[in-house]
Every structure is written in structure tokens, then in C-alpha cells.
């Protein structure tokens, strides 16, 4: 209670402004004699505020207008009585003391929403009312206080409404402070009971999820047994006050339970707990859905007053807000839980922070990403351990994109950074920091997603490296689609063919194919479409200036990500120079062969001539010595031949001249020649039906000669070598078997390597360069065929080589002869 002297603004606002200019006139209003006084009296009586005039130190009521009478209790006799006598219940409420003070000091008093408890009906029951009022001293001409003008406005309804609103807010706040719905409802019911203050017992029931039953909500003053009994009752047209109210969605006022048919089923229960009346009102959500009921019970038959109805409205509205807000909170919590669950399930590293960038949440992917478990509330700006810019310079955490996003309040897009884990591994990533704002637009936190782009970066780097390699390659690297249209064209292609990428891309590849070789392209494209590679295809292409060049082409299918063939990449190497070099080497080797063999020819000729002369002269011993010399010359010749062949194989200039020949005749001829080199061994042949091969007869002859030479050489104790031919599907197999020293199993794999010689004691005394089988194998390979060996140490060796029948012609004419 405060004294607010001269605060006219407040007076205006609280509606208790006294008509200052008429105070003097009002002093004598009680007399009501003159016309002016009559007019003032009428005004006084009809004024929209409570007005009373008190006289003397006893505060005798001189006058009270109807509103004043209504406020203090219309039936009372107060005029002429002192305040103390007229309103005995106000003793002890401070009112009398205030009046005394005003009378004594002559100072007015302003009261604001001051509660006064009045016994309006004379029943002894006090009702609380609130008033804005002013006590104005009424002074005579000498300035002595003669009485007090009371001017008041009843603000009980406003105060109650505001207090209820405050109460409501307090209750609703409980929800946001984490109080459970049950506790909040309990608090609400108690608050209503307190406000009602007439023995009312409140009961709040909640509609079950099934919409057909009511569940106990809050009823702190009803007996627990009763609450238990009605928990779960089915709603229906005759289900007591609450069940019926829920069913009909309308208030059900049962003033006397004992006589009301709605209570037929629950009458005994109610009577058991001495409940006599029950007024139930459905509680609706903002959208009109039934949430439950609020009921007022009394232990006496009773009908609701206006105040009760107001309280019921307050109770149901508050309960509705409470329930809805709780559900919204729950929904929010659930939504947040789901949101976090979703974040946690996402494969990208995600974290949230408060407005200062301190971590509030992070998902498991963030742990994997950063290689550490971040500390909530401590770690700031980022979950990572160390950061650096793409160029490798260190990036302080408070300069990271998330920090910038939060400090500057903007979304950062397209940034890249490198995170280093405690274990030293690095992740290249793109962050997506976004500030989070509240409804007012203030930044309340941030969310950031870190997308690992390491693979993409590595792929980009690899691609860039590859592109650089392609671009800087000396070879022409060209890609074309399946219809032969050029897609890419590198510097090498420009240099080799003379066309710039601008000239070439989009043009058909046939632009570099000479007219007489145009038929190659459809065949190449056919093979590419089948997914085949074309390897080292040597051909001729045409430059922009029309000149021709030798090239070696390797063409591979290009497949898209789904594995479909979409084109071809083609590497063309200019082999014009290589061709020239090959011709030079070939020429050189030809000269070398000639130059090496020519002196040997002389040596051999003289040796043999001399041997014949000595023989004729009877010097047999000397002739035989020269015979030995002659055989050494043959060995030397053989070695020269092998070396020259190897040189040609190595430099790729081995001429290869396939021509048809008849296999069996060829074998017999070769065997007969080799038979002359050995006296100990008999070379036998077992031949299948003959075929006409298309192969380089000389080279295959060398192969067979080499194999027979080895067979003889490595079977010094044996007397037999067998040559066989067999047909095996699409191949002819020629084998040479000896019964000599054999080859250890572990050495067999190396037999066809250049310069390889099987060592070991049993080998001592067998000379050679280790070139024979290598040369033989190379010759066989040149025919697209295979050579392999089977051997057992001490039992002998069989070397077989196959020759493919494609390019071989079966020749029936030789069948009889071959079978012989």
C-alpha cells in the first residue's frame, strides 16, 4: 500500500480521479438544499465511481452514493454511523488508520488496488475486493480538516483477472522449467481450490489416447480411493459429470449427485466419499480437440456462482494451455531427440555450438572425422584437432569458417580446409557452417557439417596429373566416340599430325587415315565395341600436310561409370624414326653376320682342304686333328648364329616370313640333317597325319634343330631321340624326347630365359651360351604358339611346342604319306 501524493497520471489511469474543481462544493453536498446543490447531489448519486463523505474524527457517513452502497453491501444502514460501526469487519485491515491519518494531517491518500475484505451480505463471510481510491481531506476556510471525501473504483475483477493471468503464467512456466504435467496440473488444481476458498475439491481428468476413457490427472483433495476408482472410466452419455461432459463435449452441472440420473452408476461411490455435487467442464485444445475435463466437487449440493464459473473458465483454459504446452514440449523434445538421432545417423561429421562457438553436440561421424572425442562446452569453433588452409599454412580455430560464420552471422559456402587428426592423418574437407537464430533473429548457436572431400581431392589431383601427363606426352593421345568422332586431342597429337585441337575435335578420326587404309577404322571400332583392345597395331596415318607417317596404335575401350563402352582412347606413337632405326639395325646385323661368317668360311674351307690333302697323303692322325678343328669351327658358327638371332630378337628386327610348308616332310628333312651330327643316337620319328603349316619354315627349322641339338647334347649315355607330331584341337604339337640327364623341376621354369643355363655337377662339361631354348621360345612365340618342357632328372626331357592351326591348312593329300 503506497501513498502516491499528487500523481494525477496514476489517478487517471486507475479511474479514481476526483473532480478536483468541485471539491469545495462537495463538502456541503449532504445538505442538498439549493438548486446548485441539488444538481451536484444528482451528479454525486449518479457518478460512475463510489463516493462517500465522512464527517468528523469518527468518520461518520454523511453521504454514500449507490455504487458505494453496492460495493459495501446494499442492505446496510450506514448513513450517520461511523465507519467503525457501519463496517465492523474492516477493523484490523488498516483502513481506519488511514482515515485517521488523513483527518489528522490534512494530506490526501491515494490507494492502488488495495484489498479490502467486506461482509457484504452480513453473513459473516468476508469477500475480498480491490479498490483504487483516494481519501481527500475536506477543509474549512480556516484550513482545518472537517471531514474526508472518499472516492473509489472497484477494480476487483481486473485485479483478479490479472492475478489469474499471472497465476496461469506461473503455472505454464513450470512446464518450461521441466516440471512434469502431473505436478503442474496438481499445482493448477490447488491454485483453483485456493482461489475458490469455499470447500471446493478440484478434479482434472485427461482424455486417454483412445479418446474413449478418462485418466486421472490431478485431484489433490479428493480421496485417493475415489481417484483410483474413477481412473479409466469410459466416457458416455450417462457417465457421471465428467464422463458425460467428455462425451457430450459440454459442461455438465450436477448440483445434487443424489438425485441426478447421470450419476446412477457412481452414486454409491460418491456417497461413500461424501461428494454431493459435481460440476464438470470439458477442456478443449486451441483447435477444439477434447483434452479432458475439469470438475469441482463439494460435500454439499450446490450450484455454481458467477465467481465459480469464472474460476472454471480459468481452470479449463489454463489446463488446456498446460496440456498443450506439455505436449508441445514433449513433441519438441521428441523432435530434438529425433533430430539428434538423425544427425547421429548421418555419415557426415556434424556438430552444433552455442553462440560463442562452444560445442553443444557432435555426432559419431564427427568423432571419426576428427580422430578424437571432442569436449562439449570446452572445445570451441570446431571438432577438429588441428586445421590448415588448403595451401598448408596453419589455420587457428578462431579463424575457421565456423568461427567466421558465427562472428559475422553469415553462411559460409565453398570453403575448403585440411584437418589433421592426432594420429597425423589428414582429411581434406568442405565445411558448411550455418548460424542458428531465434525468432528475433539473434544468433543462438551454429551448426556445421564437415564433408570429407579427400577422395575427390585425390581424384582431382590424380586427374590433373593424368591430364598433365596426357598433355605433355610425346605420343598422340586421342579419344573418340563409338562413331569415330574425335573427342579430345593432346599436344602430342597436334605435334604428330599437325592438326590443332580446334581443327580436330568434333571431326571424324578418318581425317588422319589415308584413303587406302580407311577400311581399318570400321574393324577397329567393331573390336572396341566388343570391349577388345588393339595393341601395337602398326599402320600408316596422314598428317595435315598430306605426308604419311608410320605409327604404332594402341586403342582401348573407354567405359563410363556404369561400365558401358562409350568410346575409345587411342595412343599413337610416331614410329617413323623407330622404323628407320630398325632398318639400320637390321642392316647392321646383316653386315655383322656377313663379316663374321666370311672369315669362318675361309678357315673352314682351308681346314677341310688341308684335312683332305693330309688324308690323301696318308697322314691320318693330322687329318683327324683338323677334323676336330673343323667341328670347333662348326660350334663357333652355331654360336655366332645364336648371338645374331638374339640380337635381332632384342632389337625387334627379326624378320618373320610365313609361307606354307608340309609339316611331316619338314620334320623328316630336319631329322635327317641332324642325324648326321651324331653317330651314337638314332633319331626316330612318330608322325601324325600331316598338315600344311603357314609359318616361317627357317625359324621353325631352327627351333627343331635347337631342340634336337639339346636332346643329343644332354643325353650322352642314351642312344635314342624321338620326334613326334600330334594334333591337339586347333594346334599341332611337335615334341622332342631324349633319355638323358633331365632337368631339376625347380629349374624348368627358367629354361626359356635368355642366357639361362642349368648348373650343377651333372652339367659340368656341357658348354653353351644358354641361348638355344631362348631363341627357340622366341621363334615359337612369334608364331603365336607355346613351348613347354617336361623332365625328370636322370630319366630324360621332353620339350614340346605347339603351332596354331589357324593359318594352317589341313592337307588331305598327305594323309597317307603322313600316316606312314
Amino acid at each position: 500500500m503506497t501513498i502516491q501524493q499528487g500523481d494525477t497520471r496514476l489517478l487517471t489511469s486507475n479511474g479514481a480521479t476526483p473532480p478536483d474543481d468541485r471539491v469545495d462544493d462537495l463538502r456541503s453536498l449532504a445538505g442538498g438544499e439549493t438548486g446548485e446543490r441539488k444538481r451536484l447531489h444528482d451528479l454525486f448519486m449518479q457518478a460512475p465511481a463510489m463516493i462517500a463523505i465522512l464527517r468528523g474524527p469518527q468518520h461518520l457517513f454523511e453521504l454514500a452514493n449507490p455504487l458505494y452502497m453496492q460495493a459495501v453491501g446494499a442492505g446496510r444502514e450506514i448513513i450517520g454511523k461511523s465507519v467503525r460501526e457501519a463496517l465492523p469487519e474492516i477493523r484490523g485491515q488498516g483502513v481506519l488508520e488511514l482515515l485517521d491519518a488523513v483527518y489528522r494531517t490534512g494530506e490526501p491518500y491515494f490507494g492502488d488496488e488495495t484489498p479490502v475484505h467486506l461482509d457484504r451480505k452480513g453473513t459473516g463471510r468476508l469477500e475480498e475486493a480491490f479498490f483504487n481510491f483516494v481519501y481527500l481531506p475536506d477543509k474549512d476556510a480556516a484550513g482545518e480538516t472537517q471531514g474526508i471525501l472518499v472516492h473509489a473504483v472497484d477494480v476487483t475483477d481486473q485485479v483478479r483477472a490479472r492475478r489469474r493471468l499471472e497465476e496461469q503464467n506461473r503455472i505454464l512456466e513450470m512446464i518450461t522449467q521441466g516440471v512434469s504435467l502431473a505436478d503442474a496440473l496438481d499445482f493448477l488444481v490447488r491454485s483453483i481450490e485456493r482461489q475458490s476458498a469455499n470447500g471446493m475439491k478440484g478434479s482434472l481428468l485427461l482424455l486417454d489416447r483412445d479418446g474413449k476413457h478418462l485418466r486421472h490427472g490431478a485431484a489433490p483433495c479428493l480421496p485417493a480411493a475415489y481417484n483410483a476408482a474413477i481412473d479409466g472410466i469410459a466416457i458416455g452419455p450417462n457417465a457421471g459429470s465428467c464422463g458425460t461432459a467428455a462425451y457430450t463435449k459440454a459442461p455438465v452441472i450436477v448440483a445434487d449427485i443424489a438425485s441426478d440420473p447421470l450419476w446412477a452408476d457412481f452414486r454409491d461411490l460418491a456417497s461413500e466419499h461424501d461428494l454431493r455435487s459435481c460440476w464438470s467442464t470439458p477442456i478443449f485444445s486451441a483447435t477444439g480437440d477434447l483434452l479432458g475435463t475439469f470438475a469441482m466437487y463439494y460435500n454439499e449440493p450446490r450450484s455454481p456462482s458467477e465467481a465459480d464459473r469464472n474460476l472454471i473458465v480459468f481452470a479449463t483454459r489454463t489446463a488446456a494451455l498446460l496440456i498443450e504446452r506439455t505436449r508441445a514440449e514433449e513433441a519438441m523434445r521428441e523432435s530434438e531427440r529425433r533430430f539428434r538421432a538423425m544427425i547421429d545417423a548421418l555419415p557426415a561429421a556434424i556438430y552444433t555450438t552455442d553462440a560463442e562457438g562452444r560445442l553443444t553436440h557432435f555426432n559419431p561421424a564427427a568423432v571419426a572425422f576428427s580422430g578424437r572425442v571432442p569436449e562439449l562446452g570446452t572445445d570451441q569453433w570446431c571438432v577438429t584437432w588441428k586445421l590448415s588452409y588448403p595451401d598448408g599454412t596453419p589455420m587457428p580455430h578462431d579463424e575457421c569458417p565456423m568461427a567466421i560464420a558465427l562472428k559475422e552471422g553469415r553462411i559460409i559456402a565453398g570453403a575448403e580446409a585440411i584437418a589433421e587428426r592426432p594420429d597425423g592423418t589428414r582429411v581434406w574437407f568442405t565445411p558448411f557452417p550455418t548460424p542458428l537464430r531465434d525468432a528475433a533473429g539473434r544468433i543462438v548457436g551454429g551448426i556445421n557439417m564437415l564433408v570429407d572431400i579427400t577422395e575427390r581431392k585425390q581424384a582431382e589431383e590424380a586427374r590433373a596429373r593424368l591430364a598433365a601427363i596426357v598433355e605433355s606426352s610425346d605420343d598422340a593421345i586421342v579419344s573418340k566416340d563409338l562413331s569415330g568422332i574425335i573427342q579430345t586431342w593432346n599436344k602430342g597429337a597436334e605435334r604428330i599430325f599437325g592438326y590443332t585441337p580446334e581443327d580436330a575435335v568434333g571431326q571424324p578420326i578418318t581425317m588422319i587415315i589415308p584413303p587406302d587404309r580407311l577400311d581399318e577404322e570400321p574393324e577397329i571400332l567393331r573390336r572396341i565395341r566388343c570391349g577388345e583392345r588393339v595393341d601395337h597395331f602398326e599402320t600408316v596415318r596422314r598428317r595435315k600436310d598430306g605426308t604419311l607417317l608410320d605409327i604404332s596404335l594402341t586403342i582401348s575401350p573407354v567405359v563410363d561409370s556404369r561400365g558401358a563402352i562409350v568410346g575409345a582412347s587411342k595412343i599413337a606413337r610416331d614410329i617413323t624414326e623407330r622404323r628407320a632405326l630398325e632398318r639400320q639395325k637390321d642392316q647392321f646385323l646383316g653386315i655383322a653376320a656377313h663379316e663374321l661368317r666370311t672369315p669362318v668360311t675361309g678357315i673352314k674351307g682351308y681346314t677341310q682342304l688341308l684335312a683332305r690333302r693330309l688324308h690323301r697323303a696318308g697322314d691320318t692322325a693330322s687329318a683327324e686333328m683338323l677334323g676336330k678343328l673343323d667341328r670347333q669351327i662348326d660350334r663357333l658358327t652355331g654360336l655366332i648364329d645364336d648371338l645374331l638371332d638374339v640380337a635381332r630378337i632384342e632389337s625387334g628386327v627379326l624378320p618373320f616370313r610365313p609361307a606354307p610348308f608340309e609339316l611331316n616332310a619338314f620334320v623328316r628333312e630336319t631329322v635327317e640333317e641332324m642325324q648326321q651330327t651324331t653317330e651314337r643316337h638314332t633319331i626316330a620319328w612318330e608322325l601324325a597325319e600331316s598338315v600344311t603349316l603357314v609359318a616361317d619354315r627357317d625359324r621353325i627349322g631352327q627351333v627343331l634343330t635347337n631342340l634336337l641339338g639339346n636332346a643329343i647334347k644332354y643325353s650322352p649315355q642314351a642312344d635314342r631321340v624321338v620326334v613326334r607330331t600330334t594334333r591337339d584341337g586347333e594346334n599341332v604339337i611337335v615334341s622332342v624326347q631324349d633319355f638323358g640327364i633331365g632337368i631339376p623341376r625347380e629349374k624348368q621354369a627358367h629354361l626359356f630365359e635368355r642366357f639361362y643355363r642349368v648348373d650343377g655337377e651333372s652339367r659340368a662339361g656341357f658348354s653353351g651360351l644358354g641361348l638355344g631354348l631362348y631363341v627357340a621360345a622366341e621363334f615359337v612365340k612369334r608364331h603365336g604358339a607355346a613351348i613347354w618342357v617336361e623332365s625328370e632328372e636322370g630319366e630324360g626331357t621332353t620339350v614340346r611346342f605347339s603351332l596354331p592351326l589357324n593359318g594352317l591348312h589341313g592337307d588331305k593329300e598327305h594323309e597317307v604319306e603322313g600316316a606312314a
Partner: protein
Amino acid sequence: MTRGTQRILVAEDDQVVLDVLRLILEEEGYAVEAVADEATLRAFPHGYPDLLFLDIWMSGWDGGDLCRELKCGEETREIPILLCSANRDGERIAREAGADGFIAKPFDMDDLLATVARHLHAQARS
């Protein structure tokens, strides 16, 4: 020159080989006449020989080409020609040039004499 009737013309530019060939053939009784250049050979100043022994690869001239040419000539095609070479592909060249035989260097004296005798006899029969 015991078998003066059988005359062998030898074109071989390596002197050592020519010398040994001459010795081998003369000891067998053949009359050996060496020619040192293509023009002389083409002129056949002493008439056509019974056998022509031609090295394929000689400085300045090609025995293979000459063989092919002689084998096309109306009068010369009957002359038996043996081509000789230190190169492996000589045999193929000889075949393609229409030579009657091929001798690979280094040669075996007995093989050489057998081949020479065979072609002389063949020539004598025809």
C-alpha cells in the same frame, strides 16, 4: 685343269674365300675362272660356263639380281647357278631369284662338292 671340259665361273669378292673355293674345286678337277666385276661376267668373254657360282652380296653388285636376270635371259637361263651367302636369308633370296641351288657360308667342302657335282650332272644330262 684335269677336267678341262667342266668350267666353273666364280663371282666372289672375298679373296680368301675365292682362293679356297678355287683350290677345293681345282683339286676336284674343275676349271675355275674367277670374275671380279659384273660387266666382265655379263660379257662371258670365254663363253658360258658349265656352272656359275655367285655370291649374293658383293660390293657394288647383287648376285641375287644378276641371277634373276640370267634366269630370264633366253640364252643364259640354262646355265646352272648356285647362289652363295653368309646371310641366313640367302636361301630365300636364292629361291626367289630362281637359282638352282644355295650354298650357305661357311660351307662344308663335301656338301659343296656334292652340290656342284649334282648340278653339273644335271646340266650334262639336259
